[in-house]
């Protein structure tokens, strides 16, 4: 018997420096200071390896996919489908379970509109499990991004179903006791985030999924803040659907992923319809391709999909487990630093508790906008406002927070600069 001695550790400083040199934008200055980019939760920066792949595609291969018979069309289609396989492998899914979307928002709307099309009678018997009506319930949590809340509100309005919400405890954890009460026989969908974009905690996917599946409800996972930051195995998580956005994980804007268990995707009626998603088109009705192409109507975002594959190759080469450890360290340093400043309150898990490399906080007497402006003056980019999650801000009695979020290219020194600037902002705005 051999003993596994190869314990993986996080990144080290020298490696992060090497990684940083791959990101051209990190070399620029802002307001006379080197850029300190702490807004990766909103969108990540892009390495040369990804930018180059997109450029090379346009310089050598550009063509429409799944349409032409010429050489470029064939090559582009191969790259496009190989990208699908790469991304599927990265998140533990089958190739035919990966649907390209513009972003996570479109992915969630795709599911919601597929379900409302079922409710209007489309999709036949196979789609029966997606049909919603009065008496059915959709369940979300209080920490959801608007992208995983508003489409469900609208679906409820369209179908007559009821939207129910699982609350949070004072540390921002999803209340499993409440989940057990809310999720019941009438629950048809349970939609929640893997990692909150405001609180930074990793949510209890297994527990919520077990509660949902026990009553036959579908689980929709918003993986926007997990896919970029920790190893993700969708089959192991046993969720039914998941979504994420490429731009938060080193890829360009305009490309996202909807994952659905193969059997479900093949039963769900399409959302967008038109060219490329059909088999036979008559004048009054048409037949659709199987998933995933059924959901990819119109000319596709080829360069972006290929660039997303390059991005996950980049992340995979570094190692998602190591990125996760590095970011946990950054998160710890950030929260320790911030909580050490008088008058600063960090939302979410208390100092020392598990979180990703992200923290949203309030500075007593200084509005988030003003904190952000002061940091920007030193070249430090953070997000201010409600971060597209008004309900969770309301839950904690605030309208706006400042959020610092790091990534694999973020250094401890950058965290320290941000913490120092937050402390200095209190002096500048006269609260000390």
């Amino acid at each position, binding site marked *: 018997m051999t003993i596994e001695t190869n314990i993986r550790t996080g990144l080290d400083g020298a490696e992060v420096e090497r990684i940083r040199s791959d990101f051209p934008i990190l070399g620029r200055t802002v307001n006379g200071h080197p850029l300190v980019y702490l807004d990766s939760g909103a969108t990540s920066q892009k390495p040369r390896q990804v930018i180059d792949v997109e450029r090379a595609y346009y310089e050598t291969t550009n063509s429409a996919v799944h349409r032409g018979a010429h050489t470029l069309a064939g090559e582009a289609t191969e790259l496009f489908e190989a990208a699908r396989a790469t991304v599927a492998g990265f998140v533990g899914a089958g190739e035919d379970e990966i649907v390209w979307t513009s972003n996570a928002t479109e992915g969630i709307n795709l599911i919601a509109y597929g379900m409302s099309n079922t409710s209007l009678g489309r999709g036949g018997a196979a789609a029966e499990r997606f049909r919603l009506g009065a008496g059915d319930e959709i369940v979300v949590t209080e920490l959801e991004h608007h992208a995983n809340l508003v489409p469900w509100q609208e679906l409820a309005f369209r179908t007559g179903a009821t939207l129910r919400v699982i609350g949070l405890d004072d540390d921002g954890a999803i209340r499993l006791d409440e989940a057990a009460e809310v999720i019941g026989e009438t629950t048809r969908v349970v939609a929640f985030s893997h990692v909150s974009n405001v609180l930074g905690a990793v949510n209890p996917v297994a527990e919520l999924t077990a509660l949902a599946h026990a009553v036959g409800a579908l689980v929709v996972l918003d993986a926007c803040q997990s896919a970029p930051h920790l190893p993700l195995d969708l089959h192991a998580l046993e969720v039914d659907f998941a979504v994420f956005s490429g731009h938060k994980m080193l890829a360009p804007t305009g490309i996202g992923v909807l994952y659905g268990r193969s059997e479900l995707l093949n039963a769900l009626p399409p959302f967008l319809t038109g060219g490329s998603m059909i088999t036979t088109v008559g004048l009054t009705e048409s037949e659709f391709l199987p998933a995933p192409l059924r959901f990819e109507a119109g000319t596709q975002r080829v360069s972006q999909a290929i660039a997303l594959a390059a991005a996950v190759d980049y992340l995979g080469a570094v190692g998602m487990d190591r990125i996760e450890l590095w970011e946990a360290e950054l998160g710890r340093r950030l929260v320790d630093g911030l909580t050490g400043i008088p008058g600063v309150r960090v939302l979410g898990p208390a100092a020392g508790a598990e979180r990703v490399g992200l923290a949203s906080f309030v500075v007593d007497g200084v509005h988030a*906008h003003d904190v952000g402006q002061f940091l920007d003056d030193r070249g430090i980019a953070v997000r201010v406002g409600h971060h597209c999650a008004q309900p969770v801000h309301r839950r904690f009695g605030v309208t706006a927070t400042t959020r610092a979020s790091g990534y694999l290219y973020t250094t401890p020194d950058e965290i320290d600069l941000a913490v120092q600037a937050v402390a200095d902002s209190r002096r500048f705005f006269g609260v000390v």
Partner: protein
Amino acid sequence: MASRELESMYQQVILDHAKQKHGFGLRDGASGSSHQINPTCGDEVTLRVHRASDGSIESISWEGQGCSISTASASVLNDLVHELSDAEATARIQAFRELMQSKGAIEGDEELLGDAVALGGVSRYVTRIKCAMLPWVAFEAALAS
């Protein structure tokens, strides 16, 4: 340590207004009212116009949640509206809007805008002009309502 640009946006007079909040606290007996939200940050202001018996503007009262720029902007506005006719008020709103759109190119007429000229530094920061405009937009709507 802060840059000259930042110091010019957050002049002491602005920081003082942000703390003192002249006119803060909604009062009854308004002729018009408006609630405005900045959807990007969730900041909000509710502003009421109170009129004298001759129809001129007697005062405003307001409440809101916002950054120092939007709060100070409401406070300086409060100090500018007494005894104005609607036409005079509209001229001041227009002058302030021009100042905000000037990208730092104009100084602002102190006769017309009082302490609001100190908000001129905001016009260099595209992302913050909305903050400064928020109470003025509410004022404009409350006049019309």
